[in-house]
């Protein structure tokens, strides 16, 4: 593999990992607080669609992004109400939301765009950070990325700091591990969990917007194609830690990037097999390689006083 090819591989790995990173960190926060957010997929799709429509209608991708963020919050609120207030089964309700969103966005997409499918939509710009971007070969291929990626990195670092050093982080950890202790210390488990689900929705909306107006500047039906589930898998693979989740997302991103790289290298592997690769990895990760004992103790269980 030449250096050029390697740089392209690295760059596309990071690009493909970005939606997973954004959604995965949000999901991790939610799971640390004890809520399993299966609807992350639906939230991403909602945002991918809403931000695409917003950018197309206004001509401004930034407004599109804002519309995407705003559009996801009701979905996140619905999930929060179902899993905390109504104490519904979190897996079933999440999958229900995903199916609902898939249907709704497909329908709305056909209504709005109709014949103009694959319309070019104004997308978010790329930035090349100083110094890093000037490295020969690597610079443009790896570091010239959509600015949303850099915002995401900043958010991930911020999240890690908040979890480690603040009272909010402590409360989130305790809400997932021993919610009774949170309740008895005078904090509200319900409020913490609502907040975390809404945060997961916010991060998923960035991830969804990255897919449509960040990466390919268009919307296609069901374009998340399981990225939300991969984000959930990366949380498990990463053992509910920021660093681990980031590494898992990068691994899944690299596995996806191989789809485009191996044919370019002339390696003859059936394409379908390569598309399967990240999901296969996720299955191995969830099923066998990591134990479940690392999970927050009350993950998926609604809190009852």
């Amino acid at each position, binding site marked *: 593999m030449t250096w050029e090819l390697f740089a392209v591989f690295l760059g596309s790995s990071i690009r493909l990992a970005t939606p997973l990173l954004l959604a995965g960190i949000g999901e991790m926060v939610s799971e640390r607080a004890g809520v399993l957010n299966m609807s992350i997929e639906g939230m991403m799709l909602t945002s991918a669609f809403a931000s695409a429509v917003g950018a197309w209608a206004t001509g401004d991708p930034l407004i599109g992004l804002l519309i995407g963020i705003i559009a996801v919050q009701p979905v996140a609120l619905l999930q929060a109400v179902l899993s905390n207030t109504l104490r519904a089964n979190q897996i079933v309700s999440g999958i229900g939301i995903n199916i609902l969103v898939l249907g709704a966005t497909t329908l709305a997409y056909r209504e709005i765009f109709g014949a103009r499918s694959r319309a070019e939509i104004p997308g978010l710009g790329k930035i090349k950070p100083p110094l890093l971007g000037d490295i020969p070969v690597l610079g443009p291929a790896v570091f010239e990325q959509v600015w949303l990626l850099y915002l995401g990195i900043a958010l991930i670092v911020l999240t890690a700091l908040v979890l480690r050093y*603040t*009272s909010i982080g402590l409360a989130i950890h305790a809400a997932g591990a021993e919610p009774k202790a949170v309740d*008895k210390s005078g904090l509200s488990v319900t409020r913490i969990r609502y907040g975390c689900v809404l945060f997961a929705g916010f991060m998923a909306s960035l991830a969804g917007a990255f897919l449509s107006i960040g990466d390919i500047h268009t919307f296609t039906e069901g374009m998340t194609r399981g990225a939300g589930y991969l984000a959930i898998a990366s949380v498990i693979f990463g053992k509910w830690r920021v660093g681990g989740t980031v590494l898992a997302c990068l691994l899944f991103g690299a596995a996806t990037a191989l789809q485009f790289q191996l044919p370019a290298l002339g390696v003859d592997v059936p394409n379908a097999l390569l598309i399967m690769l990240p999901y296969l990895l996720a299955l191995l990760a969830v099923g066998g390689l990591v134990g479940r004992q690392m999970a927050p103790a009350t993950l998926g269980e609604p809190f009852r006083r």
Partner: protein
Amino acid sequence: MSTTSGIETASVEPLLSLEAITKRFGSFAALSDVSLELRPGEIHCILGENGAGKSTLCNLIFGVHRPDGGAMRFRGVPFQPSGPADALGHGIAMVHQHFSLVPDMTVVDNVLLGRERGVLNRRQCAAQLEKLAVDYGLPLDPDAKIEDLSVGERQRVEIVKCLIRDPSLFVLDEPTAVLLPDEIAALLDVCRRVASSGRAVVLVTHKLAEIKKIADRVTVLRGGRVVATSATPAADIDALVRAMIQGNVEALDSSAASVLGLAPVPRARRDRSAIVKTEALQIDGLTVRDSQGVTRLDNFTLTVDRGEIVGVAGVEGNGQSELTAVLSGMMAATEGRIHLGEAELTGLAPKAITAAGIGIVPEDRHAVGCVTGMSLAENIYLNRLDEFTRFGFLKRSALQREAAAMMQRFDVRARGPAATFSSLSGGNQQKAVLAREITLPNLTCLVAAQPTRGLDVGAVAAVYDHIRAASARGVAILLVSSELDELLSVADRIVVLYRGRIMGACAADPARREDIGAMMAGHAQEHVQGNVHA
């Protein structure tokens, strides 16, 4: 004993007063017309049996529940906490019966939870912990994780969590239930120090030794009502006990009384002629290692003769759960063998073990002892339901008839055999489980783990009666319990488990209490000589 002591009421203004408090859960009155006063600097004990309303009272004070009638006053001002946060804000702190600590967080983080906003100052908190450790005698490593601490240390964390808030009222709900004897002494010492710093301490308990030792005043609850108060508890102890159990101490089963700490453990209590020198249960070198490779049970070897009751003592979590789980077939032993008479039971499934003649009264009756959603009758005959079938269909009338007879024999009180198991009280549930296991047709050995946990005095006595009766029929009995008094009064001989190993064995002689206590705390059997297998 007096109803109220006029002189004291006048001299000290109460910190918190409850006036005719009533609390109902549905149609059940958990508390009715309860009035009491808590004064700064005193240790006020609340005494009562299980279900007398002690915990409900604490939860009202702490704002977990709200009263349906009556009023509370805090420093003379009407007080109705909207929740724990409100109570904490008023300076009321509570150590709950069940710990609420986050196991995978450090001591400091557990203390900080809910106390600080924004960025955490762990160093400052650790310094505060150090000061408390000196002031109250509560040493703790601030950076230790809760899951690595012993039960006594965890309780210290709970206490420190409260004290760091500098409360004016400190409530402890049955804090001594899980502690070793010397840990209890240390805890009472902490209570005394807290009270002498001008705070009011409420200590909920059903152990009289503690009341004698430390209480300034006592309020006795029975059936949700205040039935007695005393400002001189040590002198009034007999009257307080009578009020608590509504009857005569002398009339009480002597073993049950000793468990409550009411009476010394009876000495010459059992006719041991029933013990036949035939080995029934033989456990040989039983070792259990968990998935992490930690040894939970280490080379456990024990023989129980027919008609003999062997007690397994020890603080909970020292291998008792693993021992009973292996004996019941719910867990596979890493090494070792189990025989019942001639038959080898090692590695058999629970069904085969039951068929071989071992009855199991599990420690956690809700998780493994019964099916709470099924009827009482179905639960009593759970392991023999196929005897009540014809062509594969259940003969419900026959089942209910037989179950009704069992209910009478074992004094299980419920609406009827068709009542849902979960509608029964804890004592009646336990009697039903015991009835099922003890009436196994070929019962030769009964393994009973914590069989009286959470039961009131009457139910405790009934459980002991049934265990003794089975032993008189020649059944070998292995009684696992964390209540030393229970073992001393029921068992013939006691082995002590510590970190999965047998630390020693001796006859169940009350005079040996201190030796056994030392072994429970991990000291090897030095002065306990001989008598291992009398």
